[in-house]
């Protein structure tokens, strides 16, 4: 059982308070959503959670280890923050291979499965610089879930995705829960979070203004459809074409 704790997180960047007393917690099998407009502090909070940014006050602890003191980064974490950002001259699989080389236990078969799971073709020889925005975003998601991370951090994961993105997020959420991992997902769209998260935290000006518990049984998906109902035809077709994670 792993636990992530953020306590009274404060951070000032160039005179602007980007995080002001934010607290949250997340444990194994749980997904926490961060909702808020642009500039509300979601991305900065995600940076603090992953260890890319250290706080001025407060702390982030993962399994009792404090970021910036005991560990530099969250161990076994999968990250998609801001833009996908990959190496333009390499293919999707090659880009993931470079990342996988940093850790053990990620073989080529798993990489190819992750690429396929997000709707990309693992045999596609096109270079990343030739990808559309949606394809780049999908590769970013694949990098975040590759290696079965214990903590998945996703920043606006449905940016540039078509409607099949909701289905993809749902399957990722199910996989995270099944593995007993945890996730922090940020989005300005509450519908995206309602199809994934157990709890939604709304932020504004670096502060938490509301916490909403999403009940899984009655969770409402996009366009008012019940998440447990039959998916839209296009999403169902997409789900058949893409192998499971």
């Amino acid at each position, binding site marked *: 059982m792993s636990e992530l704790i953020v306590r009274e997180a404060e951070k000032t*960047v160039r005179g602007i308070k980007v995080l002001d007393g934010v607290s949250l917690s997340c444990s194994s099998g749980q997904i926490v959503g961060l909702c808020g407009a642009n500039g509300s502090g979601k991305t900065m909070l995600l*940076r603090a959670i*992953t*260890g*890319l*940014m*250290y706080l001025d006050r407060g702390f982030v602890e993962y399994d009792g280890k404090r970021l910036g003191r005991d*560990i*530099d*980064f*969250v*161990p076994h*974490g999968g*990250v*998609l*923050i*801001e*833009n*996908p*950002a*990959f*190496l*333009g*001259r390499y293919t999707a699989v090659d*880009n993931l291979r*470079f*990342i996988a*080389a*940093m*850790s053990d236990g990620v073989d080529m078969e798993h990489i190819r499965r992750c690429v396929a799971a997000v709707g990309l073709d693992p045999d596609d020889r096109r270079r*990343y*610089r030739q990808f559309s925005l949606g394809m780049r975003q999908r590769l970013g998601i694949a*990098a975040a879930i590759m290696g079965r991370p214990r903590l998945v951090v996703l*920043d606006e994961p449905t940016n540039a995705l078509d409607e099949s993105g909701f289905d993809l997020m749902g399957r990722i959420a199910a996989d995270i829960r099944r593995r007993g991992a945890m996730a922090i997902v940020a989005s300005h769209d509450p519908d995206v979070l309602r199809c994934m998260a157990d709890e939604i935290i709304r932020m504004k000006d670096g502060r938490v203004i509301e916490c909403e518990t999403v009940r899984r049984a009655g969770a409402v998906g996009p366009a008012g459809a019940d998440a447990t109902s039959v998916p839209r035809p296009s999403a169902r077709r997409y789900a058949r074409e893409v192998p499971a994670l």
Partner: protein
Amino acid sequence: MRTLRLYARDLRVGLPSVRPYLVAALVLGVVHGIAAAGNCAYSGNDLSSFTFADYVALTFQFANPVDLWLLIQGRPLTITFPWFFSFAVLFAATLEYPRADLLGAGYRGVVASGSRWAWWIAKCAWVCTVAAAFWVLLFAGLILTAWAFGAQASEFMSEFAMIMVPASSSTRYPGMSMVPLMLLTVPICASMMLVQLAVSVRVERMPGYLLCMGVFFASGMVEHPLLLGNYLISGRSAGAYVEGLPMNDGLALSLAVAWIAVAVGGLLVSRMTIYGGSRDE
């Protein structure tokens, strides 16, 4: 282990960004060689009278240090611009990749490695590797060109070149070696590139570059043991001239600068905010 993995990644991913500069090193070696051959021919002596060391000495020659008294008297300031070319190209080679990697795709590698220091040390190792590769290629081009012009395969300067190379020392003994200068190129340049790296990951690229070029410009103008570039000027090298700057001093100073740059840079990286994902590479 994670530092090695990051270093291996840097060798693979960073190589395309420095490949043009490594090709330029080879070309610079050939160009310097041709220029040196021209100087040798202009001296009126047979080209076969000169040695490989002469070509190195002529490549790394620089005008005598600035003499304020002479300047006041109206003597013109002499700047040997060709001496700067190699360093200007080399320092530019490692400007782009480390910073771009941190701001772009490389941030995932940092997170996956679990250690900011591992990323930093790997980048330092990569910078040193680029410096070594650059000088190996430049000297290869220079030596091959010297050989093509019929120079003797010797590390010792000839008496003809001793006269041609400006030197502040009045004591010149023919037969001095250029090997110490050649051996110092890598540690001295690597140490300056580590300073540049530390500045560029924290601030911007150009301030680091200008700082390094500024140190070398000052080295050309002023003969002082603390200005590292002096050890790479043939007329001030103890390998060539008895009263020149000792090789051991240059090595010790470059190692000290390198250690300070690695330590300070590592401390900066260990606390800085990594804005990864800001751009593609």
